[in-house]
C-alpha cells in the first residue's frame, strides 16, 4: 500500500520549500507586473507555503472548509480583503493562488519522473485544493466588496437627509437624488423628529435636487406633509422646476392643499411672514 497522496504532496512541499517559494515568487512577478506589490506578495508566499503543506498533511479530506485549513484560509481571507479595499480585480487576487500551480507541477514532474501514479495523484490533489483556495479568495473578495457597497449605501442614506434650521421656527429639508421608499422613510422620520426637537412651525421641503417626481414620490411628499401637519407644523414644498410642474399636472397629482414655491428663497420669505418675522429693506445712507 503506497502512501496517501496528501502525505506525498506535503513531503514534496516541505522538502523543496525554499526552491518552490522562489519559483512561485518569480511566477508571481511575471503575472503581476506593474502592481508594485512584489515585496508584499513575496512575504505572503513565504508565509503561505508552510501553512499549506501543514494543512495538506493534517486534513483528511480534499476539502478546504475543514478546521485544519483555518490558518491558511485566514491568511488568504486577510489578503483578499486588503486587495478588495485597494481596488484590485478578482482575477488579480485569485492569480496569487493559481500562479502556484505551474512551479508546483514542474516540481512534481521532476520528483516523480519515474512514478506516473504518484505524479497523477499529487497533481490531481494539489489542483483540486488550489482551485478551491483560488475560488475562496474570490469569494472573500466579493464579500468585502459587498460590505464596502452596503456601508457606502448606509452613509449615503444618512448623509442625504440633513434637516437644517433656517430661522427661529423654520426648518428646511433639501432633498437630493432618488426618493425611493427606504430613503423617504428615513427622510420623513428625521424631519418629524426635528420638528419635535425644535418646535418648528414651518418646514420647507426643497426638491430642487430630485430629478424625477412620479406619483410615488408625490405620494411620499404628501404623506410627509400630512404627518407634519398632524404635529402642528406646516410644510412648504419648494424647488418645483418648470418641467416638474408640467409633469405633475399631466400626472394629475393634486398638490393644491400644499403650499408650493419655485425656489427655496421664495419659500423662505413665505415662511418668515408666516412666523411673524418681517423683512424690510435696509436703507443705505
Amino acid at each position, binding site marked *: 500500500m503506497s502512501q496517501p497522496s496528501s502525505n506525498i504532496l506535503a513531503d514534496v512541499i516541505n522538502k523543496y520549500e525554499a526552491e518552490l517559494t522562489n519559483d512561485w515568487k518569480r511566477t508571481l512577478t511575471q503575472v503581476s507586473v506593474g502592481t508594485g506589490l512584489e515585496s508584499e506578495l513575496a512575504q505572503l508566499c513565504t508565509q503561505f507555503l508552510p501553512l499549506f503543506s501543514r494543512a495538506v498533511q493534517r486534513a483528511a479530506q480534499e476539502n478546504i472548509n475543514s478546521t485544519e485549513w483555518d490558518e491558511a484560509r485566514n491568511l488568504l481571507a486577510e489578503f483578499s480583503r486588503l486587495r478588495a479595499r485597494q481596488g484590485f480585480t478578482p482575477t488579480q487576487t485569485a492569480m496569487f493562488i493559481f500562479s502556484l500551480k505551474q512551479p508546483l507541477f514542474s516540481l512534481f514532474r521532476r520528483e516523480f519522473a519515474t512514478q506516473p501514479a504518484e505524479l497523477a495523484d499529487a497533481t490531481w490533489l494539489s489542483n483540486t485544493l488550489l482551485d478551491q483556495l483560488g475560488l475562496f479568495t474570490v469569494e472573500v473578495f466579493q464579500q468585502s466588496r459587498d460590505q464596502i457597497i452596503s456601508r457606502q449605501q448606509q452613509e449615503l442614506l444618512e448623509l442625504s437627509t440633513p434637516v437644517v434650521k433656517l430661522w427661529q421656527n423654520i426648518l428646511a429639508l433639501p432633498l437630493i437624488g432618488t426618493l425611493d*421608499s*427606504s430613503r423617504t422613510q428615513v427622510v420623513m422620520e428625521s424631519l418629524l423628529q426635528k420638528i419635535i426637537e425644535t418646535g418648528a412651525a414651518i418646514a420647507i421641503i426643497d426638491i430642487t435636487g430630485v*430629478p424625477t417626481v412620479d406619483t*410615488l414620490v408625490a405620494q411620499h411628499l404628501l404623506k410627509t406633509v400630512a404627518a407634519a401637519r398632524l404635529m402642528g407644523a406646516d410644510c412648504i414644498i419648494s424647488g418645483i422646476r418648470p418641467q416638474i410642474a408640467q409633469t405633475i399636472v*399631466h*400626472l*394629475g*397629482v393634486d398638490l393644491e392643499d400644499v403650499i408650493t414655491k419655485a425656489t427655496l428663497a421664495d419659500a423662505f420669505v413665505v415662511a418668515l411672514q408666516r412666523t411673524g418675522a418681517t423683512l424690510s429693506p435696509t436703507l443705505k445712507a
Partner: protein
Amino acid sequence: MTSDVQIPSAMPLYTDDDVVRVRAQVRQFAVEIGLSLVDQTKVVTAASELARNTLRHAGGGEARLQILQRENMRGLHLAFSDRGPGIADIGLAMTDGYTSGGGLGLGLGGAKRLVDEFELTTEVGKGTTVVIIKWKRF
C-alpha cells in the same frame, strides 16, 4: 437614415434599484435623441410609473428600450412586460384615483398623458405589456 431601430436593450425589473437604472437609461436615451428638458422629464416619469407598476403588481418583469428612426423623426420606444396576473378591467385600471396597490392611482393614466403613444395589452393570468412612444418634436 430611414431604417428603423436600434437593437432593444432589455433590462430586468425586479428591485427598486432596477427602477432607478431603467430611469437613468431612459433619461440617457431621451437626451441622445434630443428631447427637450420638459419631454425628457415627462418620458422618464412615465417610465418610472410603468416600471414601478411592473414591480408592484406583477412582482417583476423587464423593460425594453429602443430608439426609433422614421424618415426625419426620432422617438423613444419603451416596452414594459411582465408575466403577472394581468388586468381584468382595463377601463377601471386606467381610471384616475383607482388603485389596487395603495398608491395614488394615477400612474397608468398619468403615464398615458405624458407620452405620445400608449398601448396596453393584457391577459388575465398571462401578463401585461405596456408600450409607450415619445416622439421628438421639431
